[in-house]
């Protein structure tokens, strides 16, 4: 059984890649593209759950691609941590694609293909057992992301897409150089063969540090976080939600994996991780308080929470890693839920600015409830998953006697709360601002209406429609009824909110899996044995 499963691991990469290419080749069959995308993502979710169940007892599945000898072949390895990552990314991608279908973004010919290729890259990056292929799969993830970013760039001006591409390229090149240095010093890039190498040889440790620095840029830890806030709030909510759960989180996963394998959790460098974690938490949270639109607050918040997740690798105790892995998974879900629930407002009312939204509690009670659930979970209130995550993480810092980090984490929680309250009071409470209806109408017309808008910069560009208006939009356009968030826009955020509630109430299950994953990082002997025998 396990033998067969591990032989099928490459399908997780090749499958979405092939189907993505195939659906790109379909010219006019929108429905088929939707179907291919959803079915592929569901299949990936099913496969990931199967892998979680298989690896729950600590089994490590490994496959040498092309059945070359171990050490020469490209290894694909799945342990509990990779399986969990795959499962949560699949859930997130499903929600995001459903949202994009509701906003009609997904009608664009290349939307689904890009998402599927992105998922192929994610699957590869989560499973790969060597750092050169990590670089390759991160590139596979990035290329469709550039495309998604540029598709939105057609609306917003290309500058955010340009920044996104430039920074990620710089980081990728640094990663490549780091991989070269690791190969030069250690003579291999296979993680299993590299196990503990950096802890023994300072030269390898420096090479490893270059790799980790490059990945940190992708994870957007302070002080290399600036690109994130300037790009993620400049694309569509669906794409922001997708990216938030994928790019930075895969990078954090890679940091965990590499520090555990290459450095063997070396105690000497832990202070670096802890310092970065603390600074990231504080800067992200303070930045969030200062922002004035829902999405930019949430994006800054994301940085703060990457700081929390980094605590785990800074402590490198079983409890710390368990809590941080739980936090990582919980955060992927909750953050996407927040992006999608505020995104539903944004897609309906045409703005994310706090001063242009208000009174949504009366107008959109369902969105308000969903936002509240996810926000409380993010801040760390019971009974949601955030409480378990934050409580165990802070408990782990105290257990490791890192009082300062624990204190900072508690304090930053309060600041996070302020940022969430800021969104709550100005968007959901308070009076409706003047012109809300008119702006919503203008936006709906711009997105769905048949009217071509003329702005001087785009005067010479041929403009194309995203799609005909839906019946709901048509009613709004003709003035028959007020702008309302359509149910289709609410469903994805609601799904994720239910997941966070479920994870909060049934935290025991995920906690055990996270502990298994943490033990895999603490003692990677099974991993090594599975790869090189």
């Amino acid at each position, binding site marked *: 059984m396990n033998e067969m499963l591990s032989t099928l691991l490459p399908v997780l990469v090749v499958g979405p890649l092939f189907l993505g290419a195939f659906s790109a080749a379909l010219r006019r069959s929108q429905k088929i593209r939707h179907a291919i995308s959803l079915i592929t993502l569901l299949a990936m979710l099913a496969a990931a759950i199967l892998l979680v169940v298989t690896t729950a007892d600590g089994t490590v599945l490994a496959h040498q691609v092309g059945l070359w000898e171990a050490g020469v072949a490209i290894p694909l390895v799945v342990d509990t941590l990779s399986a969990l990552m795959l499962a949560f990314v699949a859930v997130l991608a499903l929600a995001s694609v459903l949202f994009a279908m509701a906003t009609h973004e997904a009608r*664009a*010919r*290349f939307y689904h293909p890009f998402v599927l290729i992105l998922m192929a890259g994610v699957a590869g990056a989560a499973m790969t057992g060597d750092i*050169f292929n990590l670089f*390759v799969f991160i*590139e596979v993830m990035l*290329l469709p992301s*550039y495309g998604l970013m*540029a*598709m*939105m*760039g*057609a*609306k*917003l*001006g*290309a*500058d*955010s*897409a*340009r*920044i996104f*591409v*430039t920074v990620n*390229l*710089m980081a990728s*090149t640094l990663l*490549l*150089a780091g*991989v*070269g*240095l690791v*190969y*030069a010093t250690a003579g291999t890039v296979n993680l299993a063969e590299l196990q503990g190498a950096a802890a023994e040889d300072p030269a390898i440790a420096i090479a490893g540090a270059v790799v980790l620095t490059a990945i940190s840029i992708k994870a957007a830890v302070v002080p290399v976080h600036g690109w994130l806030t300037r790009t993620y709030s400049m*694309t569509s*909510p669906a794409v922001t939600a997708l990216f938030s759960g994928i790019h930075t989180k895969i990078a954090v996963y890679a940091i965990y994996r590499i520090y555990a394998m290459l450095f063997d959790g070396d105690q000497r460098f832990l202070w670096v991780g802890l310092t970065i974690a603390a600074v990231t938490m504080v800067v992200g949270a303070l930045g969030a308080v200062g922002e004035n*639109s829902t*999405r930019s607050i949430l994006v800054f918040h994301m940085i703060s929470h990457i700081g929390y997740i980094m605590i785990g690798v800074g402590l490198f105790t079983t409890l710390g890693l368990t809590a941080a892995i739980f936090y990582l998974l919980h955060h992927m879900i909750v953050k996407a839920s927040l992006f999608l629930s505020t995104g539903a407002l*944004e*897609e309906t009312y*045409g*703005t994310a*600015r706090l001063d242009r939204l208000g009174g949504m509690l009366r107008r959109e009670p369902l969105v308000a409830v969903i936002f509240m659930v996810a926000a409380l979970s993010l801040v760390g209130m019971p009974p949601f998953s955030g409480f378990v995550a934050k409580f165990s993480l802070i408990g782990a810092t105290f257990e490791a006697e890192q009082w300062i980090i624990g204190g900072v984490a508690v304090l930053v929680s309060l600041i996070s709360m302020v940022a969430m309250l800021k969104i709550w009071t100005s968007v959901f409470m308070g009076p409706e601002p003047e012109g809300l209806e008119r*702006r919503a109408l*203008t*936006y709906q017309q*711009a*997105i769905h209406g048949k009217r071509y*808008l*003329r*702005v*001087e*910069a785009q*005067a*010479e*560009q041929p*403009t*194309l*429609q*995203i799609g005909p208006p839906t019946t709901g939009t048509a009613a709004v356009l003709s003035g028959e009824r007020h702008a309302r968030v359509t149910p289709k826009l609410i469903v994805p955020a609601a799904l994720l909110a239910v997941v966070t509630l479920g994870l909060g109430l049934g935290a025991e299950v995920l906690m055990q899996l996270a502990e298994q994953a943490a033990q895999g990082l603490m003692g990677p002997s099974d991993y090594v044995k599975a790869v090189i025998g």
Partner: protein
Amino acid sequence: MSIALMVGILTAASVYLFMQRGMVRIVLGFVLISHAANLLLFSAGNVAFRGAPFSHVDDPAQRADPLPQAFVLTAIVIAFAISMFMVTLAITTTTDDDTEAAPTAPAKLAAAAHLKRTGHHPTVATAAVGPGDEPDGPPSDAELLGTQAGTEEDVDADVATTAEEGRRPEETPQEDVQDEGVRAEDAAKDPDGTWAARGRAADEGEDR
């Protein structure tokens, strides 16, 4: 030694180019830095005293290590694809190739000044190079600012002209004048505005 020097020089040059704001220069910087990374990877295999990786030489110590060469090949392919994409990004969507959205960005000012002077929008090609940018050497930022914008007052006047131009009241019905006024105001006052605000300001997007 020569490889180390080359890597150093290429990296320095590319970092300088990355620091520029125009996309075309960033693309050139990226081309250079990918060369630097490739050379570094190549040298990881200890190139100096080896023969071909797959040859008739039986002694493995005499053969070059094939793995870094495979790495370099992969990296070249990726770098080439991304360079193409970046060049495309540099010329699409907007009239300039700047990485800055603010209306006071040099390239935006250049476009506004060009519009004021000639009465029509600069084409992509002139905006990418910038007016006054002679082919024999790139001008300094100060020069660019000087030739394009003049004084602070000019800047305001240019931006106002652009906003005014955007309205074109004689061509649009009354209701739209109001809407587009709001949009032009959004675009002018709120350069970091939300995606939605800017989505309204822009056209309906390109159907890919």
